[in-house]
């Protein structure tokens, strides 16, 4: 695979170069213009402030106070400087040029930029104090030109945020491109492999017009010639229809090349990434948006009003996945995805245009349906295009896509929301979601295998059976539900409200939330290895629960951004401790049920019940807020999770051999 990897790596490097170049050029270009455009306005503002000062001083002079006996001048100068962070000094001179009064920024505690005595760094504006049309005094106000630099610096920080996010996005895209661009190369490899096995494939999946494509076309033509000629030769000897095949017969074209399969999987990852990104854009401010739009709804408390759309979304999302599995089986993954994506996109856009509580909830439900169907379709694509060996990798790619979106989305969304507002961000999300549609539409090929029952369609019989398994119930109630409760309730609902009340803007919230996924990503690979090696599943789950509790307690000692950031990070790490061992433990605990209905079904039920935790958590959080405020609610949930984890440790007994019903 040498040249294929070479191409991918080089394209990656090129992309990074292009990104950096574009960012640097635009930043420099913008910076060039800020100064000339903004400094005149700053000057006008300074003159206005100067005129206010002049009027006050003139009044004193007119009242008969001699210029050198003016009292309280430093105070009014200090007041003026207090509200202007770009003033470096104010000096008052008499007509002879003698300095009578002076106030510098450092004395005011404004000195954040070092004061250089470079004359061109300071713009000096003069306002005369006129008494009876004669200038008795001159006020000199010094403005630091470099406030423009500060503006550019802020812009640069924002651009860097976008750059990092784009780099992550670019990685996703590149993974995809790597596959798409080398499709022909890999198809050729595959044809060679098949040919060596004696199978000559005629149908091609790549139709490029470049050199590689022509090579493939050549192959196709050659196979055609051999087939035709061979048939004619055979006809000369054996009557047609006798059923004997020859080696030159072309092969059934339902064999799908690996290239296409991997392209499908990667396309699926890219599109779920894009869609999840669109949905995650609103994560930093969704509860705040609800409060803004919803207003009063009956007698419900504002916290409950903010909680309802989140819970409803979780419920509908879970249900959509449950029922969507069978449907995507029926209509085909590609179509299911596209319909889901369009519904989701529409839902997002309309959420941004809702006028009241009820239509907000309605559009969130539409988005949830779209998202759920889409997720199931993507999982279906992964299953259809991977075999036993590669399935785990395929699923981890899929999860990776959602993780990457969880990191990029809030960061990006926060910055966007601050600049263009909540509603436009939703509408933009709608367009981005449509883009995910475009990727699948253009690149994915329907490869589902009908009648292969590998979807996790659930029926109530399964649920009832599983709930009769006491250990399953313990696992769910004491470990799965609480952790999901914590994750949804805190990340989606409490953190935005908490940070907002501490004065943070959406960009800050958007930087705190992704730390959950970062924490998850850092700890998760370690856990997978250690947990299997040590076979300590229960302990990991308990540790994760306790860690979640500790993460929440951070709120007691820290404030604002850092509290939320560390809490998110801790929760993510705790989730990583729990995720993989939990799944393994479920399959372990329910091995009989797995034998009866299959692992997929069992896991499906588990996931569904787990999502009930997501559904309930905003309500619980809303209730806790009334008792303890936002930080109290976070601590409360933390304690709940930790206590449940400890109860789980005590109550979840290892399977004892004599409970088996075998003779």
């Amino acid at each position, binding site marked *: 695979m040498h040249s*294929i990897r070479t*191409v991918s790596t080089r394209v990656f490097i090129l992309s990074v170069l*292009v990104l950096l170049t574009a960012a640097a050029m635009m930043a420099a270009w913008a910076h060039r*213009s800020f100064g000339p455009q903004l400094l005149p306005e700053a000057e006008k*503002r300074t003159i206005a402030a100067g005129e206010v000062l002049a*009027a006050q001083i003139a009044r004193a002079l007119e009242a008969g106070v001699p210029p050198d006996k003016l009292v309280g001048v430093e105070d009014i100068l200090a007041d003026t400087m207090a509200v202007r962070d770009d003033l470096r000094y104010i000096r008052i001179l008499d007509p002879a040029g003698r300095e009578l009064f002076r106030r510098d920024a450092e004395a005011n505690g404004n000195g954040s930029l070092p004061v250089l005595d470079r004359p061109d760094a300071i713009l000096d504006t003069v306002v005369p104090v006129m008494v009876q049309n004669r200038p008795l005094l001159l006020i000199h106000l010094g403005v630091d030109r470099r406030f423009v630099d500060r*503006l550019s610096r802020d812009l640069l920080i924002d651009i860097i945020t976008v750059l990092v996010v784009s780099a992550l996005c670019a990685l996703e895209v590149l993974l995809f491109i790597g596959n798409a661009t080398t499709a022909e190369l890999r198809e050729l490899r595959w044809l060679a492999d098949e040919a060596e096995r004696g199978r000559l494939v005629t149908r091609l999946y790549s139709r490029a017009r470049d050199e590689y*494509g022509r090579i493939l076309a050549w192959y196709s033509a050659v196979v055609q010639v051999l087939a035709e000629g061979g048939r004619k030769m055979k006809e000369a000897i054996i009557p047609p229809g006798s059923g004997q095949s020859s080696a030159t017969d072309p092969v059934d074209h339902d064999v799908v090349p690996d290239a296409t399969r991997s392209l499908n999987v990667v396309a699926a990852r890219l599109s779920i990434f894009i869609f999840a990104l669109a949905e995650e854009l609103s994560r930093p401010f969704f509860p705040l948006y609800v409060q803004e739009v919803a207003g009063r709804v009956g007698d419900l408390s504002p916290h409950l009003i903010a909680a309802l759309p989140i819970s409803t979304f979780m419920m509908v999302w879970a249900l959509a996945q449950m029922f969507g599995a069978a449907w995507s089986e029926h209509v085909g993954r590609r179509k299911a995805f596209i319909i889901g994506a369009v519904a989701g996109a529409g839902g997002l856009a309309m959420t941004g245009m809702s006028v009241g509580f009820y239509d907000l909830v309605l559009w969130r439900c539409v988005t949830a349906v779209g998202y759920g169907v889409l997720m199931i379709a993507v999982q279906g694509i992964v299953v259809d295009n991977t075999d036993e060996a590669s399935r785990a990798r395929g699923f981890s790619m899929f999860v990776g896509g959602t993780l990457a979106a969880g990191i990029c989305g809030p960061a990006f969304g926060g910055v966007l929301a601050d600049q263009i507002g909540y509603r436009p961000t939703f509408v933009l999300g709608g367009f981005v979601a449509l883009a995910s549609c475009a990727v699948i539409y253009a690149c994915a090929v329907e490869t589902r295998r009908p009648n292969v029952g590998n979807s996790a369609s659930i029926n109530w019989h399964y649920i009832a059976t599983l709930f009769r398994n006491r250990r399953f119930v313990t696992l769910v109630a004491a470990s799965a539900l609480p952790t999901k409760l914590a994750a949804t309730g805190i990340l989606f609902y409490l953190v935005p409200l908490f940070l907002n009340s501490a004065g943070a803007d959406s960009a800050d919230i958007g930087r705190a939330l992704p730390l959950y996924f970062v924490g998850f990503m850092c700890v998760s690979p370690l856990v997978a290895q250690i947990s299997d090696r040590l076979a300590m599943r229960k302990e990991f789950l308990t540790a994760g629960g306790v860690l979640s509790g500790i993460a929440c307690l951070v709120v007691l000692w820290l404030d604002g951004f850092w509290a939320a950031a560390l809490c998110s990070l801790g929760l993510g790490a705790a989730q990583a401790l729990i995720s993989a061992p939990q799944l393994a433990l479920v399959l372990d605990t329910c091995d009989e049920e797995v034998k009866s209905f299959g692992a997929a079904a069992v896991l499906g039920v588990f996931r569904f019940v787990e999502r009930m935790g997501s559904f309930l958590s905003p309500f619980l959080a809303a209730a806790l807020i009334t008792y303890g405020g936002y930080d109290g609610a976070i601590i409360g949930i933390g304690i709940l999770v930790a206590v449940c984890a400890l109860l789980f440790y005590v109550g979840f007994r290892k399977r004892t051999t004599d409970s088996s019903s075998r003779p």
Partner: protein
Amino acid sequence: MRSGGVSGRIWLILVLIAVMMAGTAGALSYFKFEMKLRELVTSQLTTKTAELHSKIQRVLMLGLLLPELNELQLLVEREAGREERTDLVDIHDETGRILFSSDRDRIGQALADYDAAAVHAAPIQVVTGDATITIRMPFRNDFDQLIGGLSVRYSISDTRQKQQWMAGYLVTGAVITIGVCGLLSLLGTRLVVGRLEKQARQTRLSLKQIYDPTDASATSPEERYRTLVSRLERGPDLIADARDEVARDAARIVAALRRTVAAETATQATKNERFPADVSVG
């Protein structure tokens, strides 16, 4: 993503990346600029309005009621004429009825969208219109009752012009950036994929010697088959030349085809021996 060459696709992606980055950076720059500009202008105009407001408030201190202060009419007219930016100065009572105005026709009319209740929530109101900013500040009496307000409208068409200029400037910058990045991408793609494409071309040309799909000289399928088979047996040995993977894969294909044809010919020969030659297609 199905048609066009590998290099074409790569170049397109890179250009799209450049477009996205330039577009986002441009948008961010514009928003930052607009916010700062608006902040500067609003604070300047608020300071001016506050000056006028305190002048009038001081006159009110002397005990007269707002409607009685006839000198205010002169004051607002002078204020409106003093500066170009100042469009309109109104002084109204607590119901929004205009008492004095720089535009005499307005006296007695109601102030447009005046909401006395909103004044309590946010005393200084800034309303941004198309090319204007209106700043309103209330007057209160000695026991904090609302007795009226000052409403000054400034024209900010020059600010709007600045914004439009900036937008154009940024678009120009974006276009230049995309252009430069496009060229860079072209160069880069050429560097990355060029050599590979050359190798692929060589391979294809070698393959063409075995069989040329565009050659229309052989007419019947049997003839084509025979030509192909003979070339496969005697064809140039690509394996020795295979330096890159594409050539190697192509070589494997050719070898496989040769084997297949050989096997088939052997089978046919065997079959020919089994079946007597007098079975013929009628």
